[in-house]
């Protein structure tokens, strides 16, 4: 089932191009890795998908519904979109604004109108899944980079989004923590979530990604291939290793 459809999508920053005529579809339940050099358009695409930015031209459809600038001006529609899509920023520093980790995770569920016990349950579950139980009463501001990444993921998971957008989520994590996070993401995907993860480190994601969307320096789609296709192309793998 097609979940996301992009057609001829272009995005411009004030002095430079962000995305150049991007067309692709993403099915529900896929684990997609966005690969490419720095500044190739991975984060820009995630911003457009999350509704934080509107494309200059082209079409973005989610569940067959066009997500346009006009659609995003309506507060209710925007909030519904945000309930479907969760995003972990590259710089998780900006994402944590509450006074404690538990508050941070409870922020989303509290708005859903859940009961106090259901919120508590969600907070506990998310903290356990991301191994953040011991950070529960800590101030997010004082956490290390890796801890902030885990708390950010926990706070996004608490809303139970259908689509998870992750911008370089493994940066700053130890090898063991990277493995644990990837395992969690695989489980989430197995549970039906759609995972779209931007990364420039092929080694980290080569075993988990089902599909690889590769951008070039000109902000264009360079290749779109499955893991099996990529396995058959050692030269492409070598190219991704050097990103």
């Amino acid at each position, binding site marked *: 089932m097609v979940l996301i459809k992009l057609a001829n999508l272009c995005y411009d920053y*004030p*002095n430079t191009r962000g995305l150049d005529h991007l067309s692709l579809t993403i099915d529900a339940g896929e684990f997609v890795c966005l690969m490419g050099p720095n500044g190739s358009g991975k984060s820009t695409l995630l911003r457009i998908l999350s509704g934080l930015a509107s494309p200059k031209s082209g079409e973005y459809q989610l569940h067959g519904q066009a997500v346009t600038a006009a659609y995003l001006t309506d507060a209710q529609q925007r909030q519904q979109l945000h309930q479907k899509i969760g995003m972990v920023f590259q710089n998780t520093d900006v994402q944590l604004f509450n006074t404690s980790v538990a508050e941070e995770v409870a922020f989303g569920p509290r708005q859903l109108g859940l009961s106090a016990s259901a919120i508590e349950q969600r907070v506990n579950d998310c903290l356990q*899944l991301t*191994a953040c139980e011991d950070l529960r009463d800590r101030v997010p501001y004082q956490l290390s980079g890796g801890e902030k990444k885990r708390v950010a993921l926990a706070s996004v998971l608490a809303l139970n989004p259908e689509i998870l957008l992750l911008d370089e989520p493994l940066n700053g994590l130890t090898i063991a923590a990277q493995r644990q996070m990837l395992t969690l993401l695989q489980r989430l995907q197995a549970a039906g979530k759609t995972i779209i993860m931007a990364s420039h480190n092929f080694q980290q994601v080569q075993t988990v990604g089902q599909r690889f969307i590769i951008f070039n320096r000109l902000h264009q789609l360079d290749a779109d291939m499955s893991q099996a296709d990529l396995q058959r192309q050692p030269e492409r793998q070598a190219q991704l290793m050097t990103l």
Partner: protein
Amino acid sequence: MDPKPRTELPAWLIEKSTSTKRQAARTSFLQRNQRHLRALLTRLAQPAPVIAKRRWHLAPQINLIRLLLLVFLIALINNVTLLWCLAILLGFQLLLLSPSQLRRFVKSWFVSSLVALIFVLPSYWLTGPSTLLFFGLKTSLMLANAQYYRLTTPFQDLLSGLKALHCPDVLIMTCAIAITYLRMLGQHLLLTMEALELRTVAPAKHPYRLIGAMFGNLYLKSYSYALELYAAMEARGFNGHYVRTTTPHNRWRDYLSLSPDILVLILFIFWGN
């Protein structure tokens, strides 16, 4: 993730999430203005405009002296002819700008003049329309010169100019950090607002508590960032003194560029009002 995480997913996370349609609630002041605030922060967080090289590269201190002299003259002169001369002088300078720079100039000049007008308007009740018009024109002429300077002078030149005019290092450092830092803080606040928006799935019950938390966080971040920035500057040999960088420039050209302004000054002194 050194402690072992839980492996099985909870039931609520496996269930397909249903987006809840809510009754249109009364939106708070923050929500109504969130988009405007974001647009404002986006403007603030934008990289500094690229300054096109002037045909005549003047010494930074001469540029600064010219600006100060012009502002000083406009503030003192009450003679319409002399003010007209200064406006023509500025007009000639504007002719050298590229169309995109000229557009930017007109836009920022218009906005700043409009803001200034709010402060000038009360004089209407004190002295009548002619004084208001005269005072308004003088203010907008001053702002036009300031905008021209901002548009054509790189930030580094401003610092070099201040240093050449023997401005105290503390003042230069404050100026340097404030200008670069303001952009960074704007960027940070913008991203925080975006993150907040992404996790806002219903109108916030306590929006002001949220604003308080956001700004508290911003204060803590800015404090630690300032300390880190100063430590990094020290590690790279900064000892509190700004070194003046000498740029090749033509001394005669510098004096020539100052001469029209000095001529107006002489006319003002001898011809007066």
